[in-house]
């Protein structure tokens, strides 16, 4: 499907936030100079066409309790599949990507506590004989993504 200027306006505007008020779509429609029913219909269509992945509250998993850490390993090519099997076997490993770099395996550990992050990382190091570099998030810069208008 193609997006028109109004769709793009809506996407950009709603990435910035959505009000908590009884008639939020009415408020947003007024801000954008649109009709509320048109706004809802466009959102519905973009959701159906999978232009919109999700619309709603984004929760901070860390603020809800829980610890997360991006980790990276430099796995020799010949050991890659064996190490991958060991890493992916851990339920604490949420995402894992192979990347074009000397550090070629990048995954996120998700646990209940910081201590468990350390424990899982150390246990993976023992199990694989490879270092697990830890890159915890120190600071997050504003996250959004704008559609060229």
């Amino acid at each position: 499907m193609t997006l028109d200027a109004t769709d793009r306006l809506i996407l950009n505007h709603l990435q910035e936030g959505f009000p908590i008020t009884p008639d939020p779509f009415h408020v947003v429609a007024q801000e954008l100079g649109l009709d509320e029913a048109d706004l809802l219909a466009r959102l519905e269509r973009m959701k159906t066409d999978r232009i919109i992945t999700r619309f709603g509250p984004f929760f901070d998993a860390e603020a809800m309790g829980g610890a997360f850490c991006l980790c990276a390993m430099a796995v020799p090519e010949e050991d890659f599949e064996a190490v991958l099997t060991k890493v992916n076997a851990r339920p604490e490993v949420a995402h894992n990507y192979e990347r074009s770099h000397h550090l070629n395996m990048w995954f996120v550990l998700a646990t209940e506590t910081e201590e468990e992050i350390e424990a899982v990382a150390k246990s993976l190091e023992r199990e694989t004989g490879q270092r697990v570099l830890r890159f915890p998030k120190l600071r997050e810069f504003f996250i959004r993504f704008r559609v060229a208008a």
Partner: protein
Amino acid sequence: MSIDATDRQIIAATQAGLPLVPQPYAAVAQELGLGESELCDRLRAMQKSGVIRRIAVAPNHYALGMLANGMSVWDIEDERIADLGPQVGALEFVSHSYERPRALPDWPYNLFAMVHGSDRDEVEAKRQEVATLLGAACRGSDILYSTRILKKTGLRLRSKEG
């Protein structure tokens, strides 16, 4: 900051998204057997405490034609990152941007920024734009492309009450 069992119910009910109806909060409240004003008060409290980062739309990069992305990484002078990090995060083609610790000597980079483009060339061109923005405060950079998804599981909400 603490959330109770009702907050957890609200999280579970809205994780997949808000309904696209004129009164979405009333619809969620009714589903949970709460009053609309209680639901809204709790959402506001969670937003204030940071449990909710924001209520917003997440567009699908692929569906928007942004087929390529790279994890760009930068070695920024420590005293400049507070100033430069938000500028990188505000670029329209950057979706996620974080400060992370270096792992010397293997890894000198302390700023991570996901750069999106319609193809690899566009991602490289945008990486240059970031380099220009950072100027002399940047001592080195690299970009990592994902070559394979090895595992992808959603983050599961723990069922225990917190």
